[in-house]
């Protein structure tokens, strides 16, 4: 069952990329920063999901809610930082970046084992 589930992220990613390439929607440069942090958060959540799946602790509700809220919150925090004049953007990048690497390390270990 779990083996079959591993193909789904790849299929989903392919579909998403395909749709992204087909739909010519350009984000205004003003919002580019928010989008970049949101993408980082989404990437972190997605890798967290893969890790949980491999560790057999995957919870779909937790995963989807985490993905959505992390993505939106990351963009909101960046927006807030811009309004306050504090580079909260950097905090988000560091936090998600560190988690991203941790998740990757765990996934690597699980694969190698």
């Amino acid at each position, binding site marked *: 069952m779990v083996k079959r589930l591993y193909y789904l992220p790849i299929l*989903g990613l392919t579909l998403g990329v395909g749709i992204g390439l087909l739909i010519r929607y350009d984000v205004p440069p003003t919002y580019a920063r928010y989008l970049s942090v949101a993408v980082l958060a989404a*990437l972190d959540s997605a890798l967290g999901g893969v890790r949980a799946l491999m560790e057999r602790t995957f919870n779909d509700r937790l995963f989807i809610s985490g993905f959505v809220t992390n993505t939106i919150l990351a963009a909101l925090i960046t927006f807030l930082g811009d309004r306050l004049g504090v580079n909260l953007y950097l905090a988000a990048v560091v936090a998600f970046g560190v988690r991203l690497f941790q998740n990757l390390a765990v996934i690597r270990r699980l694969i190698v084992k």
Partner: protein
Amino acid sequence: MAALRSTRIGWGLFLTFAVLGFLLVLQFRTHQQVEADLASMSVDELSVLVATLSRESERLQAEVVDLRLELIGSQYARKTDAEMVDERRRSRDELELVTGAISAVGPGVRMVLTDTRGSLVGPYDMCEIINELRVAAARAIAVNGHRVDFNTGFSEGAAGILMSGRHISPPYDIVALGNPAELHSALLMPGGLAARLGSLPGVHVEVHRQEQLHVPSVDRTPLFQYATRVED
């Protein structure tokens, strides 16, 4: 129950990663756009960009000059003797027209200046008229049937004006070849020459555009007693 859960997990993963893929593509594209956007660059980046582009522009301009020279060189090299003779002939004809060695015909303006008292229009006025016509790109000018060439000068005479030592008297008939509209407006501009001369008592100015005018050649060959040709 387990199968249902598995399907739900599957769909969740699939959709989430689809959204991730979409976001990634969006971000890649936006980033490319932002990188190309000058407004998002810092002053340092912009100054480096300007310096680089200026250097490139200078280099390309130098290349353009080199290539033009090369092109001119190759055009000359390609020309046959007959073409060279033709070209020389053309430039000689042009020179003859400009210097007044031959008479000329063409469109232009005719200005008739009557001065019933015979003393109000002087050599300075004449110089001013000639100057005004030359500024308006007149290519050949004649006064009372005498060609105005590069040597012509006007001075005060006993009765009227001396044009290069030759006596001319009113009415002065000035013919100029060139763009009729430009010459006409140069002479008749508000507060200009014609207006000023016309306000003098007994002086009447008439300016007409004409499609076909004749300007004679110079009737005296200038003597180059002091100026001689510089050999290359």
